[in-house]
C-alpha cells in the first residue's frame, strides 16, 4: 500500500511546554485514519501541522510525496488543492449562500463553465444528503449538522485525494452522527480518497476508523485497529475507549 502521509519524529513546543515528543506514524491510501487523545493531548495541533497551518520544531512530514519542511510556495499551493479540510464548525463563508460556498473552489481553481460548476455543486450537495432547497440559504440560517454537511460538500468540490476532518460528529445528535460516519465511509468507498479524522466520538472510532493513533503524555501510546486496541492490556487505552 502506498503511503499518502508519513510523519517522522515530530517535536512541537509552545514556549517551554512540550506538546509532541518524537511522534512518527504513516497513513495509507484509501484509509480512514483517526487521531485520538484526551482533551489537550495535541490532536488538533497535529492536524493543523499536517495542513500547514502551524509549524513544527523538529522532524518532518511528507504528504503525497512532498516534504513539508522547507516547502516552496508553489508546491504548497498545488498540495493545498489536493486536500480538503472540514473544520469543526464548518467554517462556511457567512457572506455567501450554500451554493456559492460550494462553487467557490471550483470557480477559483478550474476553468469550467458556470453551468457545469453549479450542476456539480448541486450534485455534491445531494451527495452529503441535502436537498436543493437549501442551496440559496445563508450559513446563519442552517443548523449545526447542516453546516457540517455543507462544509463537507465544499471540501469534496475539487475531488480531493486527502480529506481532513476535525471532530466531524461533535455537536450532532447520535442519529445524525451515525449517518455522518456512514456517509464518510460510503464516500471513501466510492471515491477512494484517504480520510484523516480527529475525534473522540466512540461510535466514530468503532464504526468508521480503519486504524488510529492515540496521543497520550506527548507520545503515541497506540497505533493500530479498534480490535487490537480493546484487546490490548494497556489500562489507559481501556479507560480511554470506555470512558468516551
Amino acid at each position, binding site marked *: 500500500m502506498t503511503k499518502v502521509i508519513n510523519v517522522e519524529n515530530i517535536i512541537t513546543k509552545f514556549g517551554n511546554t512540550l506538546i509532541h515528543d518524537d511522534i512518527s506514524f504513516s497513513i495509507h491510501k484509501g484509509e480512514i485514519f483517526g487521531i485520538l487523545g484526551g482533551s489537550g493531548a495535541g490532536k488538533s495541533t497535529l492536524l493543523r501541522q499536517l495542513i500547514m497551518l502551524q509549524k513544527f520544531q523538529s522532524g518532518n512530514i511528507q504528504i503525497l510525496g512532498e516534504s513539508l519542511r522547507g516547502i516552496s510556495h508553489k508546491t504548497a499551493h498545488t498540495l493545498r488543492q489536493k486536500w480538503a479540510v472540514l473544520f469543526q464548525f464548518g467554517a462556511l463563508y*457567512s*457572506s455567501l449562500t450554500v*451554493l456559492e460556498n460550494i462553487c467557490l473552489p*471550483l470557480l477559483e481553481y*478550474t*476553468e*469550467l*463553465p458556470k*453551468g*457545469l460548476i*453549479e*450542476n*456539480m455543486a*448541486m*450534485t*455534491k*450537495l*445531494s*451527495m452529503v444528503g441535502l*436537498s*436543493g*432547497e437549501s*442551496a*440559496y440559504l*445563508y*450559513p*446563519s*440560517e442552517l443548523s449545526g449538522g447542516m453546516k457540517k454537511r455543507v462544509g463537507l460538500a465544499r471540501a*469534496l468540490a*475539487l*475531488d480531493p485525494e486527502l480529506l481532513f476532518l476535525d471532530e466531524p460528529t461533535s455537536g450532532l445528535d447520535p442519529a445524525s452522527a451515525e449517518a455522518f460516519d456512514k456517509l464518510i465511509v460510503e464516500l471513501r468507498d*466510492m*471515491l477512494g480518497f484517504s480520510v484523516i479524522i480527529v475525534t473522540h466520538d466512540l461510535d466514530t472510532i468503532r464504526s468508521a476508523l480503519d486504524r488510529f493513533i492515540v496521543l497520550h503524555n506527548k507520545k503515541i501510546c497506540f497505533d493500530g485497529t479498534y480490535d487490537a486496541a480493546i484487546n490490548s492490556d494497556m489500562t489507559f487505552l481501556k479507560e480511554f475507549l470506555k470512558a468516551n
Partner: protein
Amino acid sequence: MQRIQIQYLNANNLKVLIGNDWTKESLSNANTIEKEFLNLVDKTIIFDFINCLTIDSAGAVEILWIKNHLIKDGCKITYVNIDENHSKLLSFYEKNLQDKPQFSKKEYLFIERIGKWIIEGFQGVGNFLSFVGEMLFALLKLIISPWNFRFTAFIKHVDTSAIQAIGIITILSFLIGLVVAYQSAGYLAKVGADIFIVDISVMSVFRELSPIITAILITARSASSFTAEIGTMKITEEIDAMRTMGLDPFIFLVIPRVFALIITMPFLVFIADMAGMAGAYLVSHFQLGISLNDFIDRMYLEISVNELYVGLGKSPIYGAIIGVVGCYRGFQATGSTDSIGKLTTKSVVSALFWVIICDAIIAIALTKLGI
C-alpha cells in the same frame, strides 16, 4: 484525441465515442451541453467508453447531463465497454444529480417598494422607541434601587470612551481654533477690527465647534465600539445568557455606557474649548499682536458667559444620542458576523445624523429664546 466523437451507424442509430479524459482540466471552457447533441431527437445512442481512462466528478456530471438531455428528447441510451469502476461512479453520481432550484427572489413593483420602505421605517421607529422604553424602565429600576448601578462598568467606560479620547480631542480642537482665528485674522486686520477676532473665535468655538467636534470624535470612537461589542455579545448568546440569569442587559450594558457619555461629554467639551482658545490666542498674538491680557479682557468684558454654558449644556444631549444609538444598533445584531459590520456603519451614520439634527433644533430654539 477529441473529448467526444459522434458516429452515425444509420439514420436512427448513433455511436458516441467518449474520449480519454473527462476531468476538470479537459472540460475547461466547454459548453455545458455540447452543441452536437442539441438537435438529436428520438435516436438510439450508444455511449462507447472504450477509450475512456479517467472520469472525475466534473466529467461524470457533464456526461450525465448530456445523457439526461438526450433522454428528455426521446433518445435511448446504452453504455458499452465501460470499466466497472466508471460504471459505479456514474451511477453514484446519477443518483445524486439534482437540478438547481429556481431562485425565487420576489421582484417588487416600485409602489410596493415604497410601501415596504415606509413600513420598515415605521417598524424601525417602533423598535427604537421600545428600546428607549426598556432603557427608561431599567433606569426606573435603578432609581428605586440605586445600589444596582454597575459602578465598575461605568468607570471602565469613562476611561475607554472619555479619558482615552482627551488627547485627540485636545489636538483637533486646538487646530480648529487656530484655523478659525487664522481665517478671520486677515479680513479683520483689513477693516481694522483686530480685537473682534476674540469675539469671532470665542463664539464659534464655544457655541458650535467644540461640541460638534467632540461629538464627531466620540461617535467615531464610542458609537462604533458600543455597536460592535454589544453585537458580538448578542451573536455569541452572551446577552441571552444574562437574561436567563436574571441580569438585565440594560442595567449591565446600556446604562453604564450611556451614562459614561452623558457625564463626561461636558468635561470633554470644556477641554476642547480651552484647546480651541489656545489655538485662537496663538494666531491673535502672532498675526495681530494682541496680548494675552487684551485677549482675556475682551472675553471678560464683551462676551456673555452664556456662550460657554450653551456649548457645555447641549453636550450631554449629544452624549445620550451617541450612547443610545450605539447600543441600540448593537442589540439589532442577528445571526451572522457580517451583520455587525453593517450595523457599525449604520450606528455611526445615524448617531451623527441625529446629533446634527439636534444641534440645528437647539440653535433655532435658542435664537427664538434670545440666549
